[in-house]
């Protein structure tokens, strides 16, 4: 079975590095599935999930808050701003953060602050979606 070398790094640490049989990521224009010998591909990532499949093992999930994905025929590189392992996601924390961001939006904000709060909200929404999905598959 062909494999593709995959590295997931965030600004803080290396999250994952190894040979896998498929990678699924939410790229800017939609979900992409990458298998070995994929054509060179370069895209920004949306806040969302990265799923890694290794044959004979359950899928592994990671959350990224955005970044860049680079694909070579024999390699995938995910350069994320912040990344978390799926099991490290914390629903309570995400809900709390959402409430904070929503409250912030209620107050009078400058354009930049409002944009930042909206971006944060989008990220939290993606986190919550992923938590929800992880719970269902479990």
């Amino acid at each position, binding site marked *: 079975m062909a494999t593709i070398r995959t*590295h997931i*790094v*965030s*600004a*803080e*640490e*290396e999250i994952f590095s190894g040979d896998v049989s498929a990678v699924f990521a939410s*790229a*800017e*224009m939609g979900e*992409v599935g990458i298998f070995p010998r994929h*054509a*060179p*591909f*370069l*895209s*920004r990532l949306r806040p969302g999930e990265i799923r890694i499949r290794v044959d004979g093992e359950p899928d592994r999930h990671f959350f990224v808050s955005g970044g*860049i994905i*680079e694909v*070579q025929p024999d390699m995938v*590189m995910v*350069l994320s701003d912040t990344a978390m392992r799926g099991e490290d996601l914390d629903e309570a924390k995400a809900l709390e953060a959402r409430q904070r961001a929503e409250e912030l939006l209620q107050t009078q904000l400058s354009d930049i602050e409002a944009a930042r709060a909206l971006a944060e909200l989008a990220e939290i929404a993606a986190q919550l979606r992923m938590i929800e999905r992880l719970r269902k598959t479990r």
Partner: protein
Amino acid sequence: MSGEKEIRTQIASIGNTQKITKAMEMVAASKMRRAQERMASSRPYAERIRQAIGHVAGAQHEYRHPYLVARDEVKGAGFIIVSTDRGLCGGLNINLFKAAFGAIKEWQDKGAKVRVTVIGNKALGFFRRYAEIVSQATHLGDTPHIEQLIGPVKPMLDAYTDGGIDRLFLVENQFVNTMTQKPRVSQLIPTTGLEEDEAAGRLWDYIYEPEARSVLDTMLKRYIESQIYQAVVENVACEMAARMVAMKSASENAGELIGQLQLAYNKARQAAITQEISEIVGGAAAV
């Protein structure tokens, strides 16, 4: 020969200095551990994005980003020099400045106008005399943040886009281990000539989503930020390691000096006693 009293005060004062250098050594040692962790944790990103940029530089783009294209004629060269804010860290800064100075001289001899962005107080003081300083960042502390670096670096990137400079170099200290730090001058942009692999040379390009320009813009911005951030974080680790070693040897030297002075003190004391006894004996004999 100096008197007993003078030697005693000298010993005491060197002892005080030794206490200070010992304390500084210990502070630097504990800070170094943390700085090293920070350096190690952000290193994978910096290295991976460097690799990715290496791939990108090898591709045949439909859109040529200015950072990816080398200009043949070099009218100006930019340097970003990462130094420490404080001294007392051995030859760390001096070695770095020597390397930077050599590179600057080389480009000046070729007729290029050199502009410098300095990070850290020490470089600011030094390069003020030799080159035009475009921007500066000092007092970043032991835990620098990327946001603090974006502002000072921007004028350099703007100068590159405007054609004010045609090459941008990063001068930084490399942390080899606690005992060794090596200065390094590396070309940041244009990115040609970075590590390229077997994919280079063939005609190929990426599939871009949504389009080449925005993806490459984001990616190159990240690349520069991460390289400079990594350099700054690494420099903190270097600073602490160098200071630790310098202070350790200072403490040892102080100990040695105290030993020598103690010997001189004992000799002086004994000589004084002997003299006194011989005076008493002489006096008693005279009676």
